[in-house]
């Protein structure tokens, strides 16, 4: 039976890709952020995941507004990192776990989550950067299953619905008959707003409360609507929905292994959490 070892949630700010490419991990600006990862890597080495289920939001690379799914799942043999238009170096392709993808697709739709199924998918920084945080040599030792959440076009899936999707993923993995270890990741956030006269909005108090809730009170954020989340966390802070999906998938006893919080990286409150699921 498959086992969910835990969840890692992290910010995915694009400029971090530039910092990696330039080797700026020890630079005073970047160090407080990159210092969050050695402990996460140690934990990953200990729990030995075979597969990463990556919950993220596409930023207009794989999906345009001609077809914008609320939830989508990748069921492809491989996912390529390609040009996003602003010069972040691409990374080696990621090997899909087709068996687990199709199992999840069947199980989630059976569970009334009407996923859009993608047999081809390219992945952007929201997927690639968190992988590079955990495996800086970019030699991926895991297979992947992408789960995409719409954070582009409102209305977004509600926080409550995202948490329930996570629970459905948790049930589906538990029912999978192969003996594998699964790490769930949720990327993006925390508070930030790129556009408008309110650009630069950051809400430290809300972020810290949210991080605490991820450990102790995981449905706390489900009280908020999509527009409530914009008001509190900014137009891109809503990416915390991906964190909620990841947290929902943890059905056992959850303990905090590590966390890191730093303001600012680019325009963002940058955060990482490592949650074990026992």
């Amino acid at each position, binding site marked *: 039976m498959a086992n969910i070892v835990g969840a890692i949630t992290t910010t995915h700010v694009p400029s971090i890709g530039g910092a990696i490419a330039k080797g700026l991990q020890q630079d005073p600006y970047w160090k407080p952020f990159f210092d969050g990862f050695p402990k996460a890597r140690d934990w990953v080495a200990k729990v030995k995941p075979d597969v990463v289920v990556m919950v993220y939001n596409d930023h207009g690379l794989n999906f345009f507004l001609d077809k914008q799914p609320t939830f989508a799942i990748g069921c492809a043999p491989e996912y390529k990192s390609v040009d996003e238009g*602003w010069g972040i170096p691409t990374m080696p392709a990621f090997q899909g776990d087709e068996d687990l993808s199709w199992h999840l697709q069947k199980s989630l739709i059976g569970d009334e989550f009407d996923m859009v199924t993608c047999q081809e998918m390219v992945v952007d920084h929201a997927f690639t950067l968190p992988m590079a945080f955990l495996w800086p040599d970019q030699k991926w030792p895991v297979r992947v299953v992408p789960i995409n959440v719409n954070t582009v076009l409102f209305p977004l899936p509600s926080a409550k619905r995202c948490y329930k999707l996570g629970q459905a993923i948790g049930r589906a993995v538990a029912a999978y008959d192969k003996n594998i270890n699964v790490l769930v990741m949720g990327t993006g956030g925390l508070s930030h707003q790129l556009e408008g006269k309110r*650009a630069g909005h950051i809400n430290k108090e809300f972020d810290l409360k949210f991080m605490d809730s991820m450990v102790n009170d995981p449905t706390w954020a489900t009280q908020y609507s999509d527009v409530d989340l914009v008001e509190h966390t900014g*137009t891109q802070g809503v990416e915390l929905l991906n964190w909620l999906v990841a947290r929902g998938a943890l059905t056992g006893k959850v303990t905090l292994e590590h966390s890191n919080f730093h303001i600012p990286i680019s325009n963002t409150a940058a955060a990482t959490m490592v949650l074990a699921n026992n």
Partner: protein
Amino acid sequence: MSEKRVIPGTTIFDGDVARTGYALNKMCYSFNEKANREEFLKDEDAYCTKYGLNDQQRAAIAAKNVLQLLAAGGNAYFLAKFGGIFGLDMQDIGAQQTGMTKEEFKAKLVAAGR
């Protein structure tokens, strides 16, 4: 229909905005590909015509003005690809929208962490 909630200085990218901005966003989406970025730079006007931008959208593109681009229906994720052509980072864009210098905008971000 109920009144839309207003968050000052913030656009909620919903169906109304998506309808207004479709051509602009579609053009910006095309900038994922290098050949399209080069074609745009060669003749901005012809490229805007190819994507059917309206006058408001063309003026906003010509001015490289983010607030105008948002008012014309642009979405931040797609506009970022337009900004990338000119090497603008998010602090350049933030400064432009808030009327601050880049240094002032960066200081505001740092202050949010205290």
